[in-house]
């Protein structure tokens, strides 16, 4: 609330029409629902995976002999998609598109943190410039990921509607973001007031910008979609038994309750 009051006087333009009020209430409510679905849905999957046992030792070998070793194995998998690099030419293109997409996505999220914080921490500030570049390469990387799915008969065969859907959704988020920045400019102070209002549980008007409404709605859809989709790979990569298990079946007896 303190944040809002500081911001309020900077932003006299917030309109108070009945329509916007109604729309604002709907969006504020949807935002809470989406956030709840995302957090609870994600946690639910995390708990489900945690509770589901691995009765047998199945690391894909050669595998590390210690837990520390597993961490060392996973770091390049997460940071550099190392296993993809073992593949051929098709995987190199995939790697390029995929890696640039993920890194720029991360940078964009970091840049967005300026809307979520007050005052804005120094590290968020330091990502502002590179975040702008990331915003520009982001759709290009996604374009590679989309186009490649049409170019090769194996990918054409395996690709499902869901794959185009999520790529399309994310690229549209990126493009509407760019439009907001370069063409359909919005009052960022209003945006920040809106987000902080959500965060501090004292909702305010949603910015009066159709482009922002679209951008924001798509993000909510992504949040809701996330826990029920393949996007859970973000967590799965860390716990996949073939990668995360220690290769010590002889040294340590591995037991799970059902497999006694």
């Amino acid at each position, binding site marked *: 609330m303190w944040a809002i009051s500081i911001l309020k006087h900077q932003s006299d333009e917030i309109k108070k029409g009945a329509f916007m009020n109604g729309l604002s209430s709907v969006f504020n409510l949807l935002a809470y629902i989406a956030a709840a679905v995302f957090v609870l849905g994600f946690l639910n999957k995390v708990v489900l995976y945690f509770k589901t046992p691995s009765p047998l030792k199945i690391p894909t*070998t050669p595998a590390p002999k210690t837990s520390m070793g597993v961490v060392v194995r996973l770091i390049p998998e997460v940071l550099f998609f190392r296993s993809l690099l073992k593949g051929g030419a098709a995987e190199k293109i995939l790697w390029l598109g995929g890696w640039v997409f993920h890194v720029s996505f991360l940078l964009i999220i970091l840049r967005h943190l300026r809307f979520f914080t007050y005052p804005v921490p120094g590290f968020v500030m330091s990502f502002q410039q590179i975040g702008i570049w990331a915003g520009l390469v982001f759709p290009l990387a996604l374009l590679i990921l989309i186009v490649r799915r049409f170019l090769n008969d194996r990918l054409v065969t*395996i690709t499902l509607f869901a794959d185009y859907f999520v790529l399309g959704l994310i690229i549209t988020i990126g493009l509407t973001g760019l439009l907001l920045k370069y063409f359909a400019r919005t009052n960022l102070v209003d945006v920040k007031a809106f987000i902080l209002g959500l965060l501090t549980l004292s909702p305010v008007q949603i910015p009066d910008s159709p482009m922002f409404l679209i951008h924001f709605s798509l993000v909510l859809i992504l949040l809701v979609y996330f826990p029920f989709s393949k996007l859970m790979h973000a967590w799965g990569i860390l716990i996949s038994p073939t990668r995360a298990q220690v290769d010590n079946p002889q040294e340590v007896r591995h037991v799970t309750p059902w497999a006694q």
Partner: protein
Amino acid sequence: MADFKVPELTGEIITPKVTLGATSGIKPFPANEELMGKVGFPAKKSADWKVKFLAKMGEILKKYKSVRVFLDICVRCGACTDKCHYYLSTGDPRNMPVYRQELMRSVYRKYFTTSGKLFGNLAAARELSDELLEEWITYFYQCSECRRCSVFCPYGIDTAEITMAAREILDSIGIGSKYNLAIINKAETIGNNLGMGGPALRNTLDFVEEEIQEKTGVDVKLPLDVEGADILLVTPSADFFAEPHIFSLEGYAKVFHQAGVSWTLSSHASEGGNFGMFIGNYDHMKTINGRIWKAARDLKVKRVIAGECGHAWRVLYSFSNTLHGPFDFLDPNYRVPQHICDYTLDLVKKGAIKLDKAANDDFSVTFHDSCNVARASRIGNEPGGQFTIPRELINAACNKFVDMAEETIGERTFCCGGGGGVLTDELIEVRVKGAMPRMQALKRVKDSNGVNFFALICAICKAQFTKIFPYYGIEMEEVGGIHQLVGNAIVLGAKEGV
């Protein structure tokens, strides 16, 4: 010789175009009602099979993190699509690992996820049907559970886990593979996959003793069921009768003889292999594996050594301790169990046995990393020992060794095409074709280095390659075990300085 087109040996592995249904007609023979009953599965498919199917699948989803997580997280990036030897050689899209998994994933979506229940076709959810069942039977028996796909997947998704789960589900609704279940039944009731009883086993061991005596003049024994021996050797039963397997058995016997240790085979546990793993059935795997540890207890041995077998080594190395550990009745100074290559190489290094490399000068040797050893276990103390130890041993036993192309060995090794429970005649077409990537790599070292000995440490690999080499115009005598080379080279007789 074959009523299908055998791939041409060019030395190149070229990714084929997608050909829908290329191998859709190739299925394993079903187990009959009697056999199904013997191994504890429903005799046949019943009217309520869908209920049983979903119940089993639900149970597996709760019991196996691998299956649950793999079904959820695949992003269909396609990295695995051209990594399976069966796809590379047939072009059937269902042999692309991700598309094989899709057979199960589509059912998972339909019955176990919200989106599948809500959006059906749009979410690529598939309803259970007889048609789907036929696809399962076909393509989950065209996977050799070799794990090559998991190496290249950004999340390590291992199609073998899905295949095993699928076979378990099929068995639970009364649809089994005759080949696999017959072997399981024999291993559990008689003690080995061949159904060879104690007396028959003794006969073959006598025969091997005579052979060695004839060839070397040395009296090398192959003891059976000797209580109080130090070492129990557990080896695939093919070693007792098939060629070239039996030459490796001669090799092990010579090594033990020359090392001067007391050892024994067991008639109760005369099988290292474990087909329970191939069908993804925990209980059968445990029962079969249990015979080995019972024998070790009954014979009061101090250590257990495993002969040349890929999936046997996986079960022994990776699963034994879970299934029947702890092994505190055995000597803790040794690995339990230890791989024969590890054991022999150690003796060579210590100078306890001597190898005369010149004895193998007729051979130019290459080594095939068997997938279950390469990607599902370890030999020795260090990760990657499964690659270095067999090679060191080969190099100690012969003068001419060359590796095949790097992208076809080590963790990226190509399966022989006959592993994982597909080593049966009705699947010969996928077996012959599935070997193609391996054969192309072999072709290259044959051309460049005149390779004429294809060294293996897997009984199934040996059986598979002896069968399919002739299809590719190569003599089946070129297939052999590492301990065949060791057996040729080992210097028998009194030890110098001892």
